[in-house]
């Protein structure tokens, strides 16, 4: 069932649309371990949706369910008003979902430009033979895709490392390149797995700005997992809080912040 409500308007005046993706009673098990237990929530068009929780809460598993990498034993994933059948990750990517990884997964030996170009794979229609011949269609296609990639390189301010092999880059920049690759796919829904992990304050500020700009400029819906509470509360429109595979809170940052269960999960509960 698709929620057809009109959406809402955020504090800073952005209009959030209807539901794009809905998770219904998802349960995910690895053998006897229950990673996610009966969780439901939705993601609306144009919003920044965060999933937070302590270590081992099942956040990354949740993201993997959204991206189609894990197939839940129970529950349904609805995307754009239709129940999603079992899919392979590349099929999910074709539906307009792109992601970054907690541990950077770039092609280390390739240049930044080539890495970002791989994000355009779904827009390349010519076959291997045509590309090897390089004339006509393949060339036109390459030019077109390169233009799209250059706009993203400009947007994320990584012109100066365009031709640098990824292995030579510092961590913060690698994260940015990964974001660039995800953006190159022109996703409708962008999944970010701990985009700020291991960053210093300045890098975090930069990354936050880019996430907000992406959302603002391209209207991309973003779902992110993040440890840094400060960042999450500043960035997101709505937050899902997980603990031990269960959903313990869902709402605006303010609502979540005052939720007793959430406070307990993060600060611990005294048992006397």
């Amino acid at each position, binding site marked *: 069932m698709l929620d057809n409500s009109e959406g809402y308007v955020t504090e800073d005046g952005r209009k959030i649309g209807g539901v794009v993706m809905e998770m219904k009673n998802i349960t995910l098990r690895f053998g006897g371990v229950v990673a996610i237990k009966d969780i439901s929530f939705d993601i609306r068009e144009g919003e920044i949706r965060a999933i937070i929780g302590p270590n081992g809460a099942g956040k990354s598993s949740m993201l993997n369910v959204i991206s189609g990498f894990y197939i839940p034993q129970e529950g349904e994933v609805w995307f754009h008003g239709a129940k999603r059948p079992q899919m392979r990750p590349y099929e999910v990517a074709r539906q307009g979902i792109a992601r970054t990884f907690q541990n950077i997964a770039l092609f280390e030996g390739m240049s930044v430009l080539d890495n970002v170009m791989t994000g355009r794979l779904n827009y390349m229609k010519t076959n291997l033979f045509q590309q090897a011949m390089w004339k006509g269609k393949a060339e036109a296609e390459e030019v077109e895709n390169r233009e799209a990639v*250059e*706009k993203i390189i400009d947007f994320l301010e990584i012109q100066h490392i365009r031709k640098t092999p990824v292995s030579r880059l510092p961590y913060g920049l690698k994260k940015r390149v990964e974001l660039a690759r995800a953006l190159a796919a022109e996703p409708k829904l962008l999944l970010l797995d701990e985009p700020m992990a291991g960053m210093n304050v300045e890098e975090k500020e930069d990354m936050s700005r880019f996430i907000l*700009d992406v959302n603002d400029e391209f209207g991309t819906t973003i779902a992110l997992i993040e440890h840094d509470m400060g960042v999450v509360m500043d960035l997101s429109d709505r937050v899902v809080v997980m603990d031990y595979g269960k959903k313990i809170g869902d709402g605006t940052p303010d609502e979540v912040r005052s939720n007793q269960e959430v406070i307990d999960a993060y600060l611990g509960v005294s048992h006397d």
Partner: protein
Amino acid sequence: MGRRKRLAQTQSGAEGMHSLPALLHRNATQFGDAPAYREKEFGIWQCWTWAETAREIRAIALGFLELGVEKGDHIAVIGRNRPAHYWSMVAAQMVGAVPVPLYQDAVAEEMAYVLDHCGAKYVVCGDQEQVDKVIEIQENLHQVKHILYTDKRGMRKYDHSQMNALDDLMAEGSAGHARFDEELDRRIAEIEYDGTCVMLYTSGTTGKPKGVVLSNRNVIESAKNSAEFDHLNRNEDILSYLPMAWVGDFIFSIGQAYWCGFCVNCPESADTMMTDLREIGPTYFFAPPRVFETQLTNVMIRMEDAGKLKQRMFHHFMAHAKKVGGLLLDGKPVGFGDRVKYALGNLLVYGPLKDTLGYSRFRVGYTAGEAIGPEIFDFYRSLGINLKQLYGQTEATVFITVQPDGEVRADTVGVPAPDVELKIDDKGEIHYRSPGVFVEYYNNPDSTASTKDAEGWVATGDAGFIEESSGHLRIIDRAKDVGKMADGSMFAPKYVENKLKFYPDILEVVLFGNGKDRCVAFINIDLTAVGNWAERNNVAYASYQELTANPRVLETIRSHVEEVNKSVAADEMLSGCQVHRFVVLHKELDADDGEMTRTRKVRRGFVEDKFSDIIDALYDGSKQVSTTTEVTYEDGRKGSISATLEIIDVPVVPVAQHKVAAE
């Protein structure tokens, strides 16, 4: 029509051109198809011909008229080097307004002073960051009527009642051209040769910035004279990357570019400057010594990582270049064998190296603003790169003295530029008079009067002398910085500072000693050079501050200072300026903290006040000093860092008898 014939026309056709818009018109009609601007965007060099440029500028000017820009209004331009920003300045001139380029890295409060002082009603901003600063300033200033911006990113949510994208303004201007064409042509016709061309704020090593008013005559005469001096023509390519608020950039990227009709290339971003330099390969180039120093440091660092064979080849041929390269460049006689060997070196080493640096097509170039180390200077010249020095000021529309081809030396700044008269007063201060002498300091008749006398002579504030044998000018120091030590011998800090700064490990030095019995110094290490050394020697460090306190670093710096002391002792007049004690500062001197000007000159007085506790410790004999310093982050927030600094004693060479300057 042959190229030569067209060139000849360019030169003669320029006579009687009394404004930049007039030169633009000439360029667009005489060689409209030639490239005027290039900017790298989205990975490709985008190009505009002179004819296209004329159309773009006219569209902006029409847009200005539609906004209601009046004659005499000031239009501030804040942003990095981009064609649209240069065009905005010329468009402002077309409608009779005065363009005022500002330093884009200035924090809001610095910018507030300048905007308030010139009363700018319109501001052209490069991006959201600059717009935010102007909006912040506007809360107190309420004078800005309209903001224009070039980069649309992040701007959608702003209130656009008093704001527009420059693109949109141009579209509106073009659409409404029928209404304003006549008015615009009338305003262009009204531009006078002695009218204001541009207003540039001097960085000011002391006190508040001053708005230097330059007339069309100043700019055009200076551009003409300097272009003829170096035989610049319309086939030159330059890379425009220096701050637009600096007089040099205005003269090179607008004055000379419009006079000669050559092409101005704008880098993709500040970070890509070196790559873009290589891609463009400018024929005419300008850079402060720091750029050349950084490049040389990088070359040396990379050579150390190269294979044995390459290293040996590099050092062998560089030694040969050192011997004959400079002579060849100056057209001096060189033996046949040496010529052949140099040609071989060019094939194997110099050529590829120049290509890597982006200097393959380098025909003539200048360094100015600070003294350049003789080794660095000679390195570039020995490669066959015609690097020269000039001495100039905003108030002179850049040119006071320049080095002619064949008379280039590291220790002078050349002979008076064409049409420049020079004199040294009895106190040793340099004065000049030229067609480039500024009109006035804006709204500041007192400063104007104390700098420029009734006959048009301008005091530079620099002390120097003219070398009798060659007629070249040599600069000693800022006149007000030259002092006397307690025993009456001369104190000229820059002389010693420069000697120290020529070591790659040392970035900046401030020498103290005026009125004292001995000299002490602050030293900033160069993070690139010292950091690289640390990496190769397995010295671990977590921060700049930690590296500055490393005993091995301190020992290295101490040995540099000791060597400099020996060389200073050999100078009769300045032997008293040897450094007795020094500290390596825990932070880099920075313009954001007010310790330097935006053109990276040390504000001596300010530094002396701010770090007075350290200076006291240097003089009272303590072994170390604890200090807390306020720092300003790039976004304007304040913080503080504290440190305990080691004070290092350095042996000095005893001087038997101080020779006091002829008294």
